């Protein structure tokens, strides 16, 4: 309590000449903008001076020059004669490819994990809980390096593990048969990987870097999504489950038809931000040498010295991906909320 007997009434600024709140608001805003503008201008001026002193030409001309480095085979053809711009596009495609795959796998695995966490069977929920705790309490980068070190500890191609017929696992990656489309009957043929020299030829392959990144992102994100799913299921009113049970629905159908659709409303917003995190976390590829957007940006800036342009470009692309993904998720979320509103 403020004791009025000992102190004057707490009216601050009572004696200052009255300035209208409107004037004061405008003054504060001008001050804020001026301070930010001054900082930006000072940094920009200093940067221009430094660049001139070092003889670094600024601008995005370097994008059109030949990159001169190779990128491991991916969905887009790339050779060292191609431009930096194309290299960065290859990087972006690699980032999106690993992120989307990890998002898909982590969602599937995460939902299973969330349900397992709430399992009536104690051992199942205990295993799920332990898994989640281990994943959540160690750094993702450590997990990636761990998976990558395991991939590198695999045997040499000559002694490759052969878990399934035609599938080979060695420190050069995973090799497996792939279908080839043909013009004439039987239209489809199987291309088998064959040991040749220091590696395998033919078939399809997954590089150890890609595998480590995909496994790392998936297992880590699944744990986080699992916790979100668990929270969402717990948020569904108990009466709903009891009513469904009273109708004679089986446990699985209660979960699928009654609980999960309602839990979705709680689950979607935090899951969307986990999806954004997957895209951002995929940049840790730079630590294990998978050619994602950031690794290629890094190579580019080391070769051209265009640090500001290269990093700004990478940041802009990540921002664009983040913003469009969050826009898509918000639209989807709004649709779910609308549908939920109609049925209940």
């Amino acid at each position, binding site marked *: 309590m403020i004791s009025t007997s000992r102190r004057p009434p707490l009216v601050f600024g009572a004696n200052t000449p009255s300035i209208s709140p409107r004037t004061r608001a405008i003054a504060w805003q001008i001050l*804020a903008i001026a301070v930010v503008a001054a900082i930006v201008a000072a940094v920009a001026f200093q*940067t221009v001076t430094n660049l001139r002193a070092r003889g670094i030409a600024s601008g995005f001309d370097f994008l059109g020059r030949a990159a001169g480095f190779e990128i491991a085979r991916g969905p887009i053809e790339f050779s060292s004669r191609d431009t930096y711009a194309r290299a960065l596009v290859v990087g972006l495609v690699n980032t999106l490819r690993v992120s989307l795959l990890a998002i898909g796998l982590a969602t599937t695995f995460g939902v299973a994990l969330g349900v397992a966490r709430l399992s009536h069977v*104690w051992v*199942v929920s205990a295993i799920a809980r332990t898994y989640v705790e281990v994943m959540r*309490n160690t750094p993702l980068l450590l997990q990636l390096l761990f998976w*990558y070190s395991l991939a590198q500890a695999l045997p040499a191609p000559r002694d490759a593990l052969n878990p399934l017929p035609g599938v080979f696992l060695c420190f050069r990656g995973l090799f497996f048969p792939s279908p080839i489309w043909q013009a004439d009957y039987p239209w489809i043929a199987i291309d088998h990987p064959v040991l040749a020299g220091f590696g395998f030829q033919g078939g399809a392959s997954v590089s150890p870097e890609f595998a480590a990144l995909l496994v790392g992102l998936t297992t880590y994100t699944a744990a986080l999504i699992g916790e979100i799913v668990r929270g969402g299921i717990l948020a569904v009113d108990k009466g709903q489950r009891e009513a469904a049970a009273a109708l004679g629905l089986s446990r699985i159908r209660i979960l699928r038809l009654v609980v999960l659709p309602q839990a979705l409303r709680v689950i979607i917003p935090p899951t969307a931000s986990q999806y954004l995190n997957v895209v951002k976390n995929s940049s840790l590829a*730079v630590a294990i040498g998978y050619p994602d957007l950031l690794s290629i940006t890094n190579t580019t800036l080391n070769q051209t010295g265009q640090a500001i342009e290269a990093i700004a470009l990478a940041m802009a692309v990540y921002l664009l991906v*983040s913003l469009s993904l969050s826009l898509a998720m918000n639209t989807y979320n709004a649709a779910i909320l609308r549908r939920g509103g109609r049925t209940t």
Partner: protein
Amino acid sequence: MRAMTQLVASVRHAPMFRDRPNAIATAILGAAIAYAAFRFVEWGLVNAIWSLPQDGSSEACRVARGDGACWAVITERFRFILFGAYPFDQQWRPAVACLLFVGLYAASAVRTLWDWRLLLLWILLPTAAVTVLRGNVFGLSDVPTEFWGGLPLTFLLSTIGFAAAFPFAIGLALGRRSELPAVRALCITYIELVRGVPLVTFLFMAAMMFPLFVPQGLTVDKLLRAQVAIVMFVAAYVAEVLRGGLQAIPTGQYEAAASLGLPYWPSTILIVLPQVLRVSIPSLVNTFVSFFKDTSLVIVIGLFDLLGAGKAVLVDAKWVGFGAEVYLFVAFIYFAFCWGVSQYSQHLERLVSTDGRHRLSGKTI
């Protein structure tokens, strides 16, 4: 006999044998877990190699690979993993720095200290830790930051990153809820820009762009640059946590402050912020744990924190290929810390949910 019956009864009513599905699942999964545990113990303890022979060759480890763990890499190199390249005879100093940080975390868990004393501790103890590491005063030799590494670096980057981001974050959070459109727009732009890009791009910016931003001849050391990047990054996330806290304060509090005639700043500092900080504590602790883990990303710009020092050990030809052992050891340290802190945070969350805001303050209000 009676004890036997009791034992049987307690086993029968244990959660894993509650009913038939439980008992069956326990039997099947239990067997699988027991097998995995057996294999792990065989690898990690029975067949493990704990030290190297006199000649210091890791040949025995290479022969045993796959059958037994090579813990010799830890026993031989644990000083490097924990303290990095810090001068060997001076390594009591990083040890003291670690103790200071652990002391800070322990003190932060004491709820009766949650007032200006905690603020003071968060300023004094990190300063003391940096002084001990850096030296050049009190007769301690000068150790430049290039030699800092291992666990103290992880503590340092996360703790100072969090502490220094805090005032900045308060400004951003208040700015985002401000009634002044220009201030609001600036704060929203900053927060969303930072949250839209990965931390690694920020660290790259610190490592490669920052030298271009400052006058020539002025060199800012790499650790400080990384620290600044982490502060700028963490501030945006902490600001969002505090915004959640601001939204949780009942409007009655603002109205009561206004009816007392308090203008914006006094009401914010005296009425709003103390309550915001109190309700935000569990989320702040979670944010701290998440950035404690994320400071490991500094290894991409060539700093050797706990994870970086572990990774550096594996570059040595003698230890190439023993990643599993080193990473398990490092993971254990991270896990012990993060799990402990997150258990504490869950305890705090339960306090908040059972009894509103009040039990979170050290004293009764």
